[in-house]
């Protein structure tokens, strides 16, 4: 398990949303996560995979959304951001 990081001015807290197979593997639809300031989506994903290793299989097919917009893995997160990993979509 990753070390729990206490909120300080050097940390950010984000809202994470989980959907579809991700939600089922993680066992929840929504959570808060505290990360070191300057963290990106990739850092949050690493924490999720550490907790639910089955997620790793889908790593290469996830898209990233920050505040309801497609984003890149390396975009720095801001405190209060809403982050979601988007497994392959199948709407329509």
């Amino acid at each position, binding site marked *: 398990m990753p070390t729990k990081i206490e909120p300080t001015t050097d940390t950010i807290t984000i809202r994470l949303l989980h*959907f*579809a197979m991700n939600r089922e593997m993680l066992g929840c639809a929504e959570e808060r996560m505290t990360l070191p300031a300057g963290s990106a989506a990739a850092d949050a994903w690493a924490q999720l995979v550490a907790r639910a290793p089955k997620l790793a299989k889908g*790593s290469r097919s996830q*898209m990233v959304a920050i505040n309801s917009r497609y984003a890149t893995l390396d975009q720095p997160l801001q405190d209060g951001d809403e982050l979601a990993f988007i497994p392959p979509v*199948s*709407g*329509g």
Partner: protein
Amino acid sequence: MVHVKITEEVITAAALASRVRSDADGAIVSFEGVVRDNNAGKGVSYLEYEAYAEMAEREMAIIGSEAMREYGATNVAIVHRVGRMEIGEVSIAIAVAAPHRREAFAACAYTIDAVKERVPVWKKEQYADGGQWLGSQAEDKGNPALAVLSAEC
């Protein structure tokens, strides 16, 4: 004008057609995606759809704007239903109005293609012997950076 919605209610293209028409339009093309009783021959009992609703509505609005700008549609309406749906129920309804039919057909086909490609909605097929999220078998095409990362964990 673009109208979009994610809803748990029953949807129909008919309810959208009157929304999109203006007096200069000669053509309305509608698409309904319907729950089929099979997928590649395997029997389907029912479907469950899940959406990242806020983002899905935003993406559908962008797609509708593209259909207007790039394909000449006058107005576009897109509604996607979520929750459990039985065989024959409509999961997505799209209506597009345009002055002429070619624009309306092209814009409607573009819209459903784009929705399937990038709107955050997921479908779980339920069979007699279990269920499966579609797209989970999709070929890798995403973020190589994540693969490296996860390999480290």
